[in-house]
């Protein structure tokens, strides 16, 4: 795992964070539920909680889908290429490329690369890691690994992700398994594994 320069994180007095969706996107409840699931992947291992609120302007984290140049000097490039980006704490901006074909329900099978479709929850879990202060990881199975193939669903935190986020925020007091998922547990869950750092 890695952190942004200076190791920015949400201050200790702020463990109950809010997020909201850009109202101009008019996202469906199905899409919003994908993000709720993605946030829960991180709250499971940390003392952080995440609540969806309707007031976009006051939310700690703001989520939106945009095309091309959208005002932050990081223009999107159309289908594939860069899929999304997010900013370190306390900026709280998560932007996704509106040009992508996003899948919101289906469970992909690894290697179904016949489509350019990208799994939304997989990308959302990764970008939330940035919102919380994690940089990219060289561990291929980590959520914070920078690339993801089309047609792949990768949503479970790797031990590397859990260790990184717990350096920033500590453990979830309600979760007994505070050391993070082990290699053996993840293999048993059927997640395809490669190298682990």
């Amino acid at each position, binding site marked *: 795992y890695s952190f942004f320069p200076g190791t920015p994180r949400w201050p200790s007095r702020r463990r109950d964070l809010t997020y909201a969706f850009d109202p101009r996107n008019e996202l469906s409840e199905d899409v919003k539920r994908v993000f709720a699931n993605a946030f829960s992947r991180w709250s499971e291992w940390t003392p952080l909680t995440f609540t969806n609120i309707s007031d976009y302007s006051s939310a700690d984290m703001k989520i939106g889908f945009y095309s091309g140049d959208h005002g932050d000097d990081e223009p999107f490039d159309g289908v594939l290429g860069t899929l999304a980006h997010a900013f370190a704490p306390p900026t709280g901006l998560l932007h996704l490329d509106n040009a992508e074909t996003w899948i919101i329900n289906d469970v992909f099978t690894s290697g179904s690369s016949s489509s350019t479709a990208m799994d939304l929850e997989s990308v959302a879990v990764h970008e939330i890691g940035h919102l919380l202060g994690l940089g990219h990881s060289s561990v291929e199975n980590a959520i914070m690994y920078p*690339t993801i*193939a089309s047609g792949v669903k990768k949503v479970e935190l790797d031990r590397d992700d859990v260790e990184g986020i717990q350096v920033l925020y500590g453990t979830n007091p309600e979760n007994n398994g505070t050391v993070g998922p082990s290699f053996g547990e993840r293999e048993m869950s059927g997640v395809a594994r490669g190298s682990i750092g």
Partner: protein
Amino acid sequence: NFFPNISSIPPSFLPNHTTNPWDTFNKLSGCRSGQKVDGIAKLKTYFHYFGYLANTTGNFSDDFDDALEAAVKNYQKNFNLNTTGELDTSTVNQILKPRCGVPDIVNGTTTMNSGKTTSFQHSVAH
């Protein structure tokens, strides 16, 4: 463009109708230091965007220079590829993959593999 599953995607969204903005990097496979090839400048822009290459001049040439070789090596370290400094097939395939737009190297530093000190660097040579 939200779809519940792959089978619900209309044909107009299938690969034949879309292009990866980085597809042109395919033709750079096999390139190495010292060569000059059309498209290298765009690849340098890619590496600059993700933090691997500084841009001191404001634009890039099509020369596969030492700076690009170093960038390729760091990229290969970060993605657990053979550190050849050449645009071998596995490196190009990795570059073509869709990815997060956040740079791997921020302000010249990273704790991905390329920013770590390897154990042999602490050893004493005979």
